[in-house]
Protein backbone atom coordinates (compact mmCIF):
# COMPACT_ATOMS: atom_id res chain seq x y z
CA UNK A 1 0.00 0.00 0.00
CA UNK A 2 1.36 3.39 -0.97
CA UNK A 3 0.26 6.74 0.40
CA UNK A 4 1.46 10.33 0.49
CA UNK A 5 3.49 9.56 3.55
CA UNK A 6 5.27 6.34 2.76
CA UNK A 7 6.18 4.08 -0.13
CA UNK A 8 5.49 0.36 -0.36
CA UNK A 9 7.68 -0.93 2.49
CA UNK A 10 10.82 -2.91 1.69
CA UNK A 11 12.37 -5.56 3.93
CA UNK A 12 13.97 -3.03 6.33
CA UNK A 13 10.81 -0.93 6.59
CA UNK A 14 8.71 -4.06 7.23
CA UNK A 15 11.04 -5.06 10.08
CA UNK A 16 10.93 -1.53 11.53
CA UNK A 17 7.12 -1.38 11.27
CA UNK A 18 6.89 -4.68 13.14
CA UNK A 19 9.00 -3.28 15.99
CA UNK A 20 6.87 -0.11 16.12
CA UNK A 21 3.74 -2.25 16.11
CA UNK A 22 5.02 -4.25 19.08
CA UNK A 23 5.86 -1.01 20.93
CA UNK A 24 2.32 0.32 20.26
CA UNK A 25 0.78 -2.88 21.63
CA UNK A 26 3.03 -2.70 24.71
CA UNK A 27 2.11 0.94 25.42
CA UNK A 28 -1.63 0.24 25.02
CA UNK A 29 -1.34 -2.84 27.26
CA UNK A 30 0.55 -0.77 29.86
CA UNK A 31 -2.22 1.88 29.92
CA UNK A 32 -4.98 -0.76 30.10
CA UNK A 33 -3.02 -2.66 32.74
CA UNK A 34 -2.64 0.47 34.84
CA UNK A 35 -6.39 1.19 34.67
CA UNK A 36 -7.31 -2.41 35.56
CA UNK A 37 -4.76 -2.41 38.40
CA UNK A 38 -6.23 0.81 39.84
CA UNK A 39 -9.76 -0.58 39.47
CA UNK A 40 -8.66 -3.81 41.19
CA UNK A 41 -6.64 -2.08 43.89
CA UNK A 42 -9.51 0.20 44.92
CA UNK A 43 -11.91 -2.74 45.02
CA UNK A 44 -14.09 -1.76 42.05
CA UNK A 45 -14.47 -5.42 41.04
CA UNK A 46 -15.84 -6.45 44.43
CA UNK A 47 -19.42 -7.71 44.57
CA UNK A 48 -20.29 -4.99 47.08
CA UNK A 49 -19.58 -2.17 44.59
CA UNK A 50 -21.84 -3.74 41.97
CA UNK A 51 -24.54 -4.66 44.46
CA UNK A 52 -26.70 -1.71 43.42
CA UNK A 53 -26.94 -3.09 39.89
CA UNK A 54 -28.57 -6.32 41.07
CA UNK A 55 -31.83 -4.53 41.94
CA UNK A 56 -34.49 -4.36 39.26
CA UNK A 57 -35.61 -0.98 40.63
CA UNK A 58 -32.18 0.52 39.92
CA UNK A 59 -32.37 -0.72 36.33
CA UNK A 60 -35.91 0.60 36.06
CA UNK A 61 -34.62 4.02 37.15
CA UNK A 62 -31.77 3.77 34.63
CA UNK A 63 -34.33 2.96 31.93
CA UNK A 64 -36.44 5.96 32.96
CA UNK A 65 -33.35 8.21 32.95
CA UNK A 66 -32.44 6.91 29.46
CA UNK A 67 -36.00 7.70 28.44
CA UNK A 68 -35.63 11.28 29.69
CA UNK A 69 -32.34 11.64 27.78
CA UNK A 70 -34.00 10.34 24.62
CA UNK A 71 -37.10 12.51 25.16
CA UNK A 72 -34.97 15.66 25.36
CA UNK A 73 -33.05 14.51 22.28
CA UNK A 74 -36.19 13.73 20.26
CA UNK A 75 -37.89 17.07 20.96
CA UNK A 76 -34.62 18.98 20.45
CA UNK A 77 -33.85 17.17 17.17
CA UNK A 78 -37.29 17.86 15.65
CA UNK A 79 -37.22 21.47 16.86
CA UNK A 80 -33.67 22.03 15.61
CA UNK A 81 -34.55 20.69 12.16
CA UNK A 82 -37.59 22.95 11.95
CA UNK A 83 -35.68 26.01 13.17
CA UNK A 84 -32.78 25.12 10.88
CA UNK A 85 -35.01 25.15 7.80
CA UNK A 86 -36.74 28.37 8.85
CA UNK A 87 -33.43 30.18 9.47
CA UNK A 88 -31.84 28.81 6.30
CA UNK A 89 -34.73 29.97 4.13
CA UNK A 90 -34.67 33.34 5.89
CA UNK A 91 -30.95 33.69 5.27
CA UNK A 92 -31.37 32.80 1.59
CA UNK A 93 -34.12 35.40 1.19
CA UNK A 94 -33.92 38.05 -1.52
CA UNK A 95 -34.93 40.78 0.94
CA UNK A 96 -32.00 42.39 2.79
CA UNK A 97 -34.26 43.42 5.71
CA UNK A 98 -34.93 39.73 6.37
CA UNK A 99 -31.54 38.29 5.40
CA UNK A 100 -29.50 40.68 7.55
CA UNK A 101 -31.17 40.26 10.97
CA UNK A 102 -31.55 36.48 10.56
CA UNK A 103 -27.89 36.21 9.62
CA UNK A 104 -26.98 38.11 12.79
CA UNK A 105 -29.22 35.87 14.92
CA UNK A 106 -27.63 32.74 13.44
CA UNK A 107 -24.11 34.05 14.08
CA UNK A 108 -24.88 34.97 17.70
CA UNK A 109 -26.62 31.67 18.47
CA UNK A 110 -23.68 29.76 17.03
CA UNK A 111 -21.16 31.74 19.07
CA UNK A 112 -22.86 31.32 22.45
CA UNK A 113 -21.94 28.13 24.36
CA UNK A 114 -24.98 25.84 24.76
CA UNK A 115 -24.43 25.59 28.51
CA UNK A 116 -24.49 29.38 28.96
CA UNK A 117 -27.76 29.48 27.01
CA UNK A 118 -29.17 26.79 29.33
CA UNK A 119 -28.03 28.88 32.34
CA UNK A 120 -29.84 31.90 30.86
CA UNK A 121 -33.08 29.93 30.54
CA UNK A 122 -32.84 28.07 33.86
CA UNK A 123 -31.20 30.60 36.22
CA UNK A 124 -31.65 33.86 34.35
CA UNK A 125 -35.32 33.87 33.35
CA UNK A 126 -36.71 33.39 36.92
CA UNK A 127 -35.37 36.90 37.61
CA UNK A 128 -37.87 38.13 35.04
CA UNK A 129 -40.59 36.00 36.60
CA UNK A 130 -40.52 33.13 34.10
CA UNK A 131 -39.96 29.75 35.73
CA UNK A 132 -38.88 26.95 33.47
CA UNK A 133 -38.61 23.18 33.92
CA UNK A 134 -35.04 21.92 33.37
CA UNK A 135 -36.41 19.83 30.49
CA UNK A 136 -37.51 22.90 28.55
CA UNK A 137 -34.30 24.78 29.35
CA UNK A 138 -32.30 21.87 27.89
CA UNK A 139 -34.56 21.48 24.87
CA UNK A 140 -34.83 25.18 23.97
CA UNK A 141 -31.07 25.75 24.30
CA UNK A 142 -30.35 22.71 22.13
CA UNK A 143 -32.92 23.81 19.53
CA UNK A 144 -31.43 27.32 19.37
CA UNK A 145 -27.83 26.17 18.98
CA UNK A 146 -28.30 23.15 16.72
CA UNK A 147 -30.98 24.92 14.70
CA UNK A 148 -28.57 27.73 13.84
CA UNK A 149 -25.82 25.25 12.95
CA UNK A 150 -28.22 23.26 10.76
CA UNK A 151 -29.32 26.50 9.10
CA UNK A 152 -25.73 27.11 7.99
CA UNK A 153 -25.45 23.50 6.78
CA UNK A 154 -28.65 23.72 4.72
CA UNK A 155 -27.67 27.12 3.32
CA UNK A 156 -24.27 25.74 2.30
CA UNK A 157 -26.08 22.84 0.64
CA UNK A 158 -28.35 25.14 -1.37
CA UNK A 159 -25.49 27.45 -2.37
CA UNK A 160 -23.34 24.54 -3.53
CA UNK A 161 -25.93 23.61 -6.18
CA UNK A 162 -25.17 24.64 -9.77
CA UNK A 163 -26.87 27.92 -10.68
CA UNK A 164 -28.52 26.20 -13.63
CA UNK A 165 -30.82 24.35 -11.21
CA UNK A 166 -32.68 27.44 -10.05
CA UNK A 167 -32.44 29.03 -13.51
CA UNK A 168 -34.11 25.96 -15.01
CA UNK A 169 -36.80 26.18 -12.33
CA UNK A 170 -37.51 29.83 -13.14
CA UNK A 171 -37.38 29.05 -16.88
CA UNK A 172 -40.28 26.60 -16.62
CA UNK A 173 -42.29 29.25 -14.79
CA UNK A 174 -41.93 28.28 -11.13
CA UNK A 175 -42.11 30.97 -8.46
CA UNK A 176 -39.43 31.59 -5.83
CA UNK A 177 -41.11 29.40 -3.20
CA UNK A 178 -41.67 26.56 -5.65
CA UNK A 179 -38.07 26.69 -6.90
CA UNK A 180 -36.90 26.43 -3.29
CA UNK A 181 -39.36 23.69 -2.33
CA UNK A 182 -39.29 21.55 -5.46
CA UNK A 183 -35.80 22.06 -6.88
CA UNK A 184 -33.23 23.41 -4.42
CA UNK A 185 -34.13 22.02 -0.97
CA UNK A 186 -34.57 18.34 -2.01
CA UNK A 187 -31.12 18.32 -3.61
CA UNK A 188 -29.51 20.28 -0.75
CA UNK A 189 -30.97 17.94 1.88
CA UNK A 190 -29.74 14.92 -0.05
CA UNK A 191 -26.23 16.31 -0.36
CA UNK A 192 -26.08 17.41 3.28
CA UNK A 193 -27.77 14.37 4.86
CA UNK A 194 -24.55 12.96 6.45
CA UNK A 195 -23.72 16.36 7.97
CA UNK A 196 -27.29 16.78 9.24
CA UNK A 197 -27.23 13.38 10.98
CA UNK A 198 -23.76 14.13 12.39
CA UNK A 199 -25.23 17.30 13.90
CA UNK A 200 -28.01 15.22 15.43
CA UNK A 201 -25.32 13.09 17.11
CA UNK A 202 -23.96 16.35 18.58
CA UNK A 203 -27.48 17.14 19.83
CA UNK A 204 -27.70 13.75 21.52
CA UNK A 205 -24.29 14.27 23.13
CA UNK A 206 -25.22 17.74 24.34
CA UNK A 207 -28.33 16.50 26.18
CA UNK A 208 -25.79 15.39 28.81
CA UNK A 209 -25.28 19.10 29.60
CA UNK A 210 -28.70 18.89 31.24
CA UNK A 211 -26.97 17.18 34.16
CA UNK A 212 -25.40 20.52 35.10
CA UNK A 213 -28.78 22.28 35.31
CA UNK A 214 -30.32 19.37 37.29
CA UNK A 215 -32.24 17.75 34.44
CA UNK A 216 -32.66 14.18 35.69
CA UNK A 217 -31.06 12.34 32.79
CA UNK A 218 -28.53 9.48 32.85
CA UNK A 219 -25.56 11.32 34.37
CA UNK A 220 -27.78 12.80 37.06
CA UNK A 221 -28.90 9.32 38.06
CA UNK A 222 -25.31 8.03 37.95
CA UNK A 223 -24.31 10.77 40.39
CA UNK A 224 -27.27 9.92 42.62
CA UNK A 225 -26.68 6.15 42.75
CA UNK A 226 -22.91 6.74 43.00
CA UNK A 227 -23.33 8.70 46.22
CA UNK A 228 -25.56 6.14 47.99
CA UNK A 229 -23.45 4.88 50.88
CA UNK A 230 -25.84 1.96 51.46
CA UNK A 231 -24.53 0.49 48.19
CA UNK A 232 -20.92 1.45 49.05
CA UNK A 233 -20.91 4.65 46.94
CA UNK A 234 -20.46 2.88 43.57
CA UNK A 235 -19.56 6.01 41.57
CA UNK A 236 -17.04 4.15 39.36
CA UNK A 237 -19.40 1.29 38.40
CA UNK A 238 -22.21 3.82 37.85
CA UNK A 239 -19.97 5.87 35.54
CA UNK A 240 -19.03 2.72 33.61
CA UNK A 241 -22.68 1.63 33.18
CA UNK A 242 -24.04 5.04 32.22
CA UNK A 243 -21.04 5.79 30.00
CA UNK A 244 -21.61 2.53 28.11
CA UNK A 245 -25.28 3.47 27.54
CA UNK A 246 -24.39 6.97 26.29
CA UNK A 247 -21.63 5.75 23.98
CA UNK A 248 -23.88 2.97 22.62
CA UNK A 249 -26.68 5.47 21.82
CA UNK A 250 -24.27 7.82 20.01
CA UNK A 251 -22.56 4.97 18.15
CA UNK A 252 -25.93 3.74 16.84
CA UNK A 253 -26.74 7.22 15.49
CA UNK A 254 -23.23 7.61 14.01
CA UNK A 255 -23.59 4.18 12.38
CA UNK A 256 -26.82 5.35 10.73
CA UNK A 257 -24.99 8.47 9.49
CA UNK A 258 -22.24 6.35 7.96
CA UNK A 259 -24.73 4.05 6.23
CA UNK A 260 -26.62 7.01 4.78
CA UNK A 261 -23.37 8.57 3.54
CA UNK A 262 -22.22 5.36 1.88
CA UNK A 263 -25.61 4.86 0.27
CA UNK A 264 -25.69 8.44 -1.05
CA UNK A 265 -22.22 8.07 -2.50
CA UNK A 266 -23.25 4.89 -4.31
CA UNK A 267 -26.39 6.34 -5.89
CA UNK A 268 -24.61 9.60 -6.72
CA UNK A 269 -22.07 7.62 -8.73
CA UNK A 270 -24.82 5.89 -10.70
CA UNK A 271 -26.51 9.20 -11.50
CA UNK A 272 -23.32 10.85 -12.70
CA UNK A 273 -23.53 9.51 -16.24
CA UNK A 274 -27.07 10.88 -16.63
CA UNK A 275 -26.61 14.43 -15.41
CA UNK A 276 -23.09 15.82 -15.23
CA UNK A 277 -23.04 18.39 -12.42
CA UNK A 278 -20.95 21.21 -13.75
CA UNK A 279 -20.72 24.21 -11.45
CA UNK A 280 -19.53 26.46 -14.22
CA UNK A 281 -22.52 25.66 -16.44
CA UNK A 282 -24.75 28.72 -16.51
CA UNK A 283 -27.53 29.68 -18.86
CA UNK A 284 -25.33 31.87 -21.03
CA UNK A 285 -22.77 29.16 -21.32
CA UNK A 286 -25.38 26.54 -22.15
CA UNK A 287 -26.56 28.70 -25.03
CA UNK A 288 -22.96 29.13 -26.16
CA UNK A 289 -22.42 25.37 -26.06
CA UNK A 290 -25.49 24.75 -28.16
CA UNK A 291 -24.29 27.27 -30.70
CA UNK A 292 -20.97 25.40 -30.87
CA UNK A 293 -19.04 28.39 -29.52
CA UNK A 294 -17.76 26.71 -26.39
CA UNK A 295 -16.47 23.28 -25.48
CA UNK A 296 -18.63 21.80 -22.69
CA UNK A 297 -15.73 19.75 -21.32
CA UNK A 298 -13.21 21.98 -19.56
CA UNK A 299 -9.79 21.07 -20.89
CA UNK A 300 -7.10 20.25 -18.36
Amino acid at each position, binding site marked *: *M*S*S*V*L*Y*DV*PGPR*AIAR*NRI*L*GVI*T*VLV*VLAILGFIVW*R*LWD*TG*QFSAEKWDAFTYSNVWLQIALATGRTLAAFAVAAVGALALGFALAIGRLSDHPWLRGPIGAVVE*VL*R*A*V*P*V*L*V*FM*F*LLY*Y*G*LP*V*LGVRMEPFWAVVIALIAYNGSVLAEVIRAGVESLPRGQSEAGYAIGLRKAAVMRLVLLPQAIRAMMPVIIAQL*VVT*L*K*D*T*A*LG*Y*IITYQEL*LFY*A*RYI*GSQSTYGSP*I*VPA*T*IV*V*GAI*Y*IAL*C*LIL*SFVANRVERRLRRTAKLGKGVAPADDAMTATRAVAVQAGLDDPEPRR
Partner: protein
Amino acid sequence: MGIITDNLDLWSSTLLGTLVLFVAGGLLALVLGTLVGAMRVSPIPVARAVGTFYVNTIRNTPLTLVFFAFAFALPPLLGLRLTGDVSLTLAICALGIYTATYVAETIRSGINTVPVGQAEAARALGLTFGQVMTLVVLPQAFRSVIPPMMSVFIALLKNTTVAAGFSVVNLGSIRSYLSERGENQFVAILWVMVVFVVLVLLLSWAQRALENRWKVAR
Protein backbone atom coordinates in the same frame (compact mmCIF):
# COMPACT_ATOMS: atom_id res chain seq x y z
CA MET B 1 -22.39 48.24 33.08
CA GLY B 2 -22.41 48.41 36.88
CA ILE B 3 -22.46 44.65 37.10
CA ILE B 4 -19.03 44.61 35.42
CA THR B 5 -17.35 47.64 36.97
CA ASP B 6 -18.47 46.74 40.52
CA ASN B 7 -17.21 43.16 40.23
CA LEU B 8 -14.05 43.57 38.18
CA ASP B 9 -12.19 41.11 40.45
CA LEU B 10 -14.69 38.33 39.65
CA TRP B 11 -14.77 39.05 35.92
CA SER B 12 -10.98 39.08 35.62
CA SER B 13 -10.47 35.90 37.65
CA THR B 14 -13.17 33.99 35.75
CA LEU B 15 -11.93 35.25 32.38
CA LEU B 16 -8.45 34.13 33.40
CA GLY B 17 -9.88 30.72 34.37
CA THR B 18 -11.49 30.36 30.94
CA LEU B 19 -8.25 31.36 29.18
CA VAL B 20 -6.18 28.93 31.27
CA LEU B 21 -8.58 26.08 30.39
CA PHE B 22 -8.51 27.14 26.72
CA VAL B 23 -4.73 27.44 26.38
CA ALA B 24 -3.74 24.43 28.50
CA GLY B 25 -6.51 22.23 27.10
CA GLY B 26 -5.60 23.37 23.57
CA LEU B 27 -1.91 22.56 24.05
CA LEU B 28 -2.71 19.11 25.44
CA ALA B 29 -5.16 18.51 22.57
CA LEU B 30 -2.53 19.58 20.00
CA VAL B 31 0.14 17.24 21.41
CA LEU B 32 -2.16 14.27 21.90
CA GLY B 33 -4.08 14.93 18.68
CA THR B 34 -0.91 15.12 16.59
CA LEU B 35 0.23 11.81 18.09
CA VAL B 36 -3.11 10.11 17.40
CA GLY B 37 -3.34 11.71 13.93
CA ALA B 38 0.14 10.36 13.13
CA MET B 39 -0.97 6.91 14.35
CA ARG B 40 -4.07 7.10 12.11
CA VAL B 41 -1.95 7.64 8.95
CA SER B 42 0.98 5.40 9.91
CA PRO B 43 1.93 2.25 7.97
CA ILE B 44 1.49 0.18 11.15
CA PRO B 45 -1.92 -1.57 11.21
CA VAL B 46 -1.98 -1.89 15.02
CA ALA B 47 -1.32 1.82 15.50
CA ARG B 48 -4.01 2.68 12.94
CA ALA B 49 -6.51 0.43 14.76
CA VAL B 50 -5.70 1.95 18.16
CA GLY B 51 -6.02 5.49 16.76
CA THR B 52 -9.34 4.67 15.08
CA PHE B 53 -10.71 3.11 18.26
CA TYR B 54 -9.71 6.14 20.35
CA VAL B 55 -11.19 8.64 17.91
CA ASN B 56 -14.46 6.73 17.37
CA THR B 57 -15.03 6.14 21.09
CA ILE B 58 -14.27 9.62 22.39
CA ARG B 59 -16.10 11.33 19.51
CA ASN B 60 -19.23 9.44 20.51
CA THR B 61 -18.87 10.33 24.19
CA PRO B 62 -20.57 13.48 25.49
CA LEU B 63 -18.03 15.99 26.82
CA THR B 64 -20.05 16.17 30.04
CA LEU B 65 -19.52 12.42 30.49
CA VAL B 66 -15.75 12.83 30.00
CA PHE B 67 -15.76 15.60 32.63
CA PHE B 68 -17.95 13.44 34.88
CA ALA B 69 -15.52 10.51 34.67
CA PHE B 70 -12.52 12.74 35.35
CA ALA B 71 -14.14 14.69 38.18
CA PHE B 72 -15.93 11.90 40.04
CA ALA B 73 -14.66 8.46 38.95
CA LEU B 74 -10.94 9.17 38.59
CA PRO B 75 -10.16 10.75 42.01
CA PRO B 76 -11.21 7.66 44.02
CA LEU B 77 -9.28 5.42 41.59
CA LEU B 78 -6.06 7.39 41.90
CA GLY B 79 -6.61 8.36 45.53
CA LEU B 80 -6.66 12.10 44.75
CA ARG B 81 -7.95 14.70 47.21
CA LEU B 82 -10.12 17.22 45.38
CA THR B 83 -8.52 20.65 45.78
CA GLY B 84 -8.89 23.57 43.39
CA ASP B 85 -5.67 22.74 41.55
CA VAL B 86 -6.56 19.07 41.16
CA SER B 87 -10.00 19.97 39.79
CA LEU B 88 -8.41 22.38 37.32
CA THR B 89 -5.86 19.76 36.16
CA LEU B 90 -8.58 17.14 35.74
CA ALA B 91 -10.73 19.61 33.75
CA ILE B 92 -7.78 20.43 31.47
CA CYS B 93 -7.17 16.70 30.92
CA ALA B 94 -10.86 16.13 30.11
CA LEU B 95 -10.91 19.02 27.60
CA GLY B 96 -7.58 17.96 26.07
CA ILE B 97 -8.51 14.31 25.66
CA TYR B 98 -11.89 15.21 24.15
CA THR B 99 -10.55 17.86 21.75
CA ALA B 100 -7.56 15.69 20.74
CA THR B 101 -9.88 13.47 18.67
CA TYR B 102 -11.01 16.46 16.61
CA VAL B 103 -7.40 17.65 16.20
CA ALA B 104 -6.39 14.15 15.06
CA GLU B 105 -9.18 14.00 12.47
CA THR B 106 -8.30 17.47 11.17
CA ILE B 107 -4.63 16.54 10.76
CA ARG B 108 -5.50 13.24 9.09
CA SER B 109 -7.86 14.83 6.56
CA GLY B 110 -5.31 17.61 5.97
CA ILE B 111 -2.65 15.07 5.04
CA ASN B 112 -5.16 13.25 2.84
CA THR B 113 -5.74 16.41 0.77
CA VAL B 114 -2.14 16.31 -0.50
CA PRO B 115 -2.18 14.44 -3.84
CA VAL B 116 -0.14 11.20 -3.81
CA GLY B 117 1.65 12.41 -6.96
CA GLN B 118 3.36 15.16 -4.92
CA ALA B 119 5.13 12.66 -2.66
CA GLU B 120 5.81 10.29 -5.54
CA ALA B 121 7.44 13.08 -7.53
CA ALA B 122 9.52 14.05 -4.51
CA ARG B 123 10.62 10.46 -3.99
CA ALA B 124 11.41 10.13 -7.71
CA LEU B 125 13.74 13.12 -7.32
CA GLY B 126 15.60 11.14 -4.68
CA LEU B 127 14.52 13.11 -1.61
CA THR B 128 14.76 11.23 1.67
CA PHE B 129 11.72 10.56 3.89
CA GLY B 130 12.58 13.57 6.07
CA GLN B 131 12.92 15.83 3.05
CA VAL B 132 9.67 14.58 1.49
CA MET B 133 7.89 15.38 4.75
CA THR B 134 9.40 18.76 5.59
CA LEU B 135 9.74 20.16 2.07
CA VAL B 136 6.73 18.78 0.21
CA VAL B 137 3.95 17.09 2.19
CA LEU B 138 3.73 18.90 5.53
CA PRO B 139 3.84 22.49 4.14
CA GLN B 140 0.87 21.68 1.89
CA ALA B 141 -1.01 19.76 4.57
CA PHE B 142 -0.42 22.56 7.10
CA ARG B 143 -2.15 25.09 4.85
CA SER B 144 -5.30 23.06 4.40
CA VAL B 145 -5.36 22.18 8.13
CA ILE B 146 -5.40 25.77 9.45
CA PRO B 147 -9.08 26.78 8.83
CA PRO B 148 -10.68 23.57 10.23
CA MET B 149 -8.20 23.62 13.13
CA MET B 150 -9.40 27.11 14.06
CA SER B 151 -12.97 25.78 14.09
CA VAL B 152 -11.82 23.05 16.49
CA PHE B 153 -10.37 25.71 18.79
CA ILE B 154 -13.52 27.84 18.62
CA ALA B 155 -15.45 24.75 19.75
CA LEU B 156 -12.88 24.20 22.51
CA LEU B 157 -13.34 27.78 23.74
CA LYS B 158 -17.09 27.25 24.01
CA ASN B 159 -16.59 23.85 25.65
CA THR B 160 -14.55 25.34 28.50
CA THR B 161 -17.87 26.45 30.05
CA VAL B 162 -18.75 22.80 30.80
CA ALA B 163 -16.08 22.94 33.53
CA ALA B 164 -18.49 25.22 35.42
CA GLY B 165 -20.54 22.15 36.28
CA PHE B 166 -17.51 20.54 37.94
CA SER B 167 -16.41 23.30 40.33
CA VAL B 168 -13.73 24.89 38.16
CA VAL B 169 -13.75 28.69 38.09
CA ASN B 170 -14.40 30.07 34.60
CA LEU B 171 -16.79 32.43 32.80
CA GLY B 172 -19.52 29.79 32.91
CA SER B 173 -19.50 29.76 36.73
CA ILE B 174 -19.45 33.56 37.29
CA ARG B 175 -23.27 33.53 37.51
CA SER B 176 -23.34 31.74 40.88
CA TYR B 177 -20.69 34.06 42.40
CA LEU B 178 -22.50 37.16 41.16
CA SER B 179 -25.85 35.96 42.50
CA GLU B 180 -24.23 35.47 45.90
CA ARG B 181 -23.35 39.17 45.76
CA GLY B 182 -26.98 39.94 45.01
CA GLU B 183 -26.51 40.84 41.35
CA ASN B 184 -29.11 40.23 38.66
CA GLN B 185 -28.31 36.77 37.24
CA PHE B 186 -30.13 37.41 33.98
CA VAL B 187 -27.99 40.44 33.18
CA ALA B 188 -24.85 38.59 34.34
CA ILE B 189 -25.48 35.69 31.94
CA LEU B 190 -26.28 38.09 29.10
CA TRP B 191 -22.86 39.73 29.65
CA VAL B 192 -21.18 36.30 29.64
CA MET B 193 -22.86 35.69 26.28
CA VAL B 194 -21.54 39.00 24.97
CA VAL B 195 -17.99 38.08 26.07
CA PHE B 196 -18.24 34.75 24.28
CA VAL B 197 -19.63 36.29 21.09
CA VAL B 198 -16.73 38.76 21.10
CA LEU B 199 -14.12 36.04 21.74
CA VAL B 200 -15.58 33.79 19.04
CA LEU B 201 -15.74 36.69 16.56
CA LEU B 202 -12.07 37.43 17.30
CA LEU B 203 -11.13 33.80 16.64
CA SER B 204 -13.17 33.63 13.41
CA TRP B 205 -11.57 36.87 12.26
CA ALA B 206 -8.16 35.27 12.90
CA GLN B 207 -9.36 32.19 11.04
CA ARG B 208 -10.33 34.22 7.97
CA ALA B 209 -7.06 36.17 8.07
CA LEU B 210 -4.96 33.00 8.27
CA GLU B 211 -7.07 31.33 5.59
CA ASN B 212 -6.49 34.17 3.17
CA ARG B 213 -2.80 34.24 3.94
CA TRP B 214 -2.21 30.50 3.52
CA LYS B 215 -4.76 29.64 0.89
CA VAL B 216 -3.72 26.63 -1.18
CA ALA B 217 -3.38 27.69 -4.79
CA ARG B 218 -4.04 24.61 -6.88
